[in-house]
């Protein structure tokens, strides 16, 4: 095809031990929203990095409007009209929107002019944003707008978006889609990476599916079911988590007006959170990132202490106890940030297995660690959760994000917790692995564990939760049965309509 904006031919990139991309070819047409689909480790990010000039392909070629295109660095890619919105924002909290945008420009105009341009672009594309606000005070959705506007100011021909909706409320997703619609109408092409297949069906014109570095299929998302796409990605039949009708048992974990001040300057303090989780029940907590999720997890793991009586596990007040003691009592947690928080990046999987399991798995005896038992436990996790790694002695940071996620969730799940709290359990994990993790959580509940799932993925919460609540600015909404909730109800709960804020009985 000669009328393609960007045509990719035979792109190959190998790293020691893995071929990240193997002979990948496809075209992106002008004004097309093109989806890039694949499991974790399928090679999506490597491919995108090659397009954006962060990684150099080993072989193959790209052509931009028929002329050879081989960006040596992102600056060259930007000059050619390629812009990218990353999954992780690179913004300075202490600076305002305009300053942040100016930082990314080679030759920034005077602040006043830039602010006017920002306002203009934000009006034009329906992305409300005040250029003078400090980024630290913005929600994740607003931060993303900063990144998008930063890209739009370059007047890109191709906009790459890496999982843009993972941090947004349903209402914010709608706004984003409208913006993308306008861009598309103007002839801008969009390369869209996401795990959310329904979203892709709604938005994208064309989809390229990668598996193990190779292109395995192309499809038109509108004419393909989400299930078919998922199966193309996985290369096997997908099984959706199932659960039997559960009868909740007695209260295992109770929070009584839990209030904790956030240690971080831009963190969110928890304000009088009251809830109960029962044996055999999954409580889903929604909320846009930065509304107290991290603090709640820390207050439950014991990293943040509170008044003793604010956290009660099986009738014992534990609010003032540390993580080790809580773990001993059966309260296990898995934080959102995998590298550096849930796992030590440069330590092996064996060593990371001992991080939370030293006592419960008998790895430590009289203060001495048995690396054999730790290795055995690591191997069990790897097998049961299908963690793709050459072995237990590999450093945690050598695993792809999704695989490490399977490992850290698996590590907690396999320790038979009494109460398990997970934050973003399937963040960045592909459909098949996410299904495995969700099933594991449901199985735990089946076995009598009380489970709290904190997540920004509403589909996930609706799939696993028995009861549902949302965090907003450190407060908890009313806790309601998950069945029968509409998307509007949830949006209102997440948006913090405070008249609904009633303490859980």
């Amino acid at each position, binding site marked *: 095809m000669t009328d393609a904006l960007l045509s990719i031919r035979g792109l190959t990139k190998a790293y020691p031990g893995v071929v990240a991309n193997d002979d990948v070819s496809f075209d992106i047409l002008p004004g097309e929203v093109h989806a890039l689909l694949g499991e974790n480790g399928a090679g999506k990010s490597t491919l995108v990095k090659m397009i954006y000039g962060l990684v150099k392909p080993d072989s193959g070629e790209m052509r931009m409007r028929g002329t050879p295109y081989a960006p040596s660095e992102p600056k060259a890619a930007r000059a050619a009209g390629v812009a990218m919105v990353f999954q992780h924002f690179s913004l300075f909290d202490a600076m305002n929107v305009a300053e942040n945008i100016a930082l990314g420009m080679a030759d920034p105009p005077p602040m006043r002019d830039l602010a006017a341009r920002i306002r203009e672009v934000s009006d034009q594309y329906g992305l409300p944003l005040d250029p003078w606000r400090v980024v630290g005070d913005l929600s994740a959705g607003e931060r993303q707008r900063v990144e998008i506007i930063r890209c739009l100011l370059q007047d890109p021909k191709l906009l790459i978006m890496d999982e843009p909706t993972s941090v947004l409320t349903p209402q914010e997703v709608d706004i984003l889609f409208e913006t993308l619609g306008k861009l598309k109408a103007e002839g801008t092409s969009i390369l869209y990476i996401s795990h959310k297949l329904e979203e892709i069906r709604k938005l994208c014109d064309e989809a390229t599916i990668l598996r193990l570095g190779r292109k395995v299929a192309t499809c038109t998302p509108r004419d393909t079911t989400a299930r078919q796409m998922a199966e193309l990605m996985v290369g096997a039949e997908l099984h959706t988590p199932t659960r039997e009708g559960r009868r909740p048992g007695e209260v295992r974990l109770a929070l009584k007006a839990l209030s904790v001040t956030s240690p971080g300057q831009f963190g969110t303090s928890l304000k009088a959170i009251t809830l109960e989780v029962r044996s055999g029940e999954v409580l889903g907590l929604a909320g846009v990132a930065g509304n107290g999720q991290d603090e709640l997890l820390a207050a439950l793991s014991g*990293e943040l202490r509170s008044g003793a009586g604010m956290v009660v596990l099986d009738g014992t007040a534990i609010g003032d106890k540390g993580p080790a003691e809580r773990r001993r009592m059966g309260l296990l947690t898995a934080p959102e940030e995998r590298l550096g*928080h849930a796992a*030590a990046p*440069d330590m092996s999987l064996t060593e990371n297995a001992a*991080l939370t399991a030293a006592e419960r798995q008998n790895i430590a005896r009289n*203060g001495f660690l048995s690396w054999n038992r730790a290795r055995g436990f690591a191997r069990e996790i790897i097998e049961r959760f299908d963690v793709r790694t050459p072995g237990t002695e590999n450093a945690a940071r050598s695993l792809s994000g999704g695989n490490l996620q399977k490992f850290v969730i698996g590590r907690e799940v396999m320790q038979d917790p009494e109460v398990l709290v997970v934050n973003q359990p399937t963040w960045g994990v592909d459909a098949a692995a996410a299904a495995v993790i969700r099933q594991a959580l449901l199985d735990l509940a089946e076995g009598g564990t009380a489970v709290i799932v904190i997540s920004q993925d509403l589909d996930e919460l609706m799939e696993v939760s028995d009861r549902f609540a949302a965090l907003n600015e450190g407060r908890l909404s009313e806790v309601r049965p998950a069945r029968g909730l509409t998307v509007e109800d949830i949006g209102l709960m997440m948006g913090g309509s405070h008249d609904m804020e009633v303490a859980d009985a």
Partner: protein
Amino acid sequence: MVTLEKRPQPSRIVAWSTPFMAVLATMIAGGLLFAALGEDPLVAIRTIFWDPLFGQHAFFYRPQLLVKGAPLILIAIGLSLGFRAGIWNIGAEGQYILGAICGAGMGLAFYPAEGWFIFPLMVMAGALGGLVWAMIPGLLKVRFGTNEILVSLMLVYVAEQLLASMSLGLLKNPQGFGFPGSRNLQQYPSAHNAELIAGTGMHWGVAAALIAVIFAYVLLTRHQLGYHIRLTGEAPRAAKFAGIAPARLVLFCLGISGAFAGLAGMFEVSGPAGQVSIDFNTGYGFTAIIVAFLGRLHPVGILLAGLLMALTYIGGEIAQSSLGLPAAAIQMFQGMLLFFLLAVDVLTSYRLRFGKREAA
């Protein structure tokens, strides 16, 4: 163009070869330095690295290797535990001095009584002296969040003043004709840290250094505490998540490095040095920092690095006397070693890529 590319995981082979690369680079740069001073670089290098071991007077210098190496190793082992956890005790020199003062003070308190129990008491007093001195930055850090690097370093100068005061006052030899300095412990059998086997340089301090190496090795590889130390250094947030109390670890690491430095000072004052004097400390506490890093903060590495550093000390002295090289040149030589080590260290996490990038 040369570019740095991050490795998917840190290379173990490179991590272990960087000390050798650093030694080699130091030899080359040092050789140039000596050449600039008007010496034949090959002769100078041979004098420093070869003569102490295999030269004409090697029989005299070889025992010195243990005498000089033992305090370096003992101190560096203690420091390395803290360094692993990101706790920076820079004041080992001060803790070394305090260990010597307390150890010698304990011995001299019994003078002239003899008894088997005196030496063990001195060992305990030496360790305790270093430990208490290191607890000052430790408690200040835990309680008020002060920077342990600054506080421990400042306390070195306080310790030096204390040492001078002790040599001139409290511990001054009453029969010393007014000269500063304490009684000579070498002449007080119960307090003398004599050679265990005559002519080998092997004294109790050497034994203690070897025990410390084994202790640190077992602690770091087998014990939960060692795991916590490593975890805290590599991922502080993960360590907190695992349930490690940072304050306790700070106190443990500073305490043990202080105690080891104190022990080294005590063995030195009661053995090779013999007496508390104004110029008792010779910078072992600072050189041990180089030793710790040169040994990759690994106990066995530190053992080897300590011996190497002892060699440059001895070789440096020979070079001073036989070639007339200035003492500063030798110190610079040792400094270069740390400098080059830190420089080549970047290769453990990054690899070099040669060749031009393609233009867009």
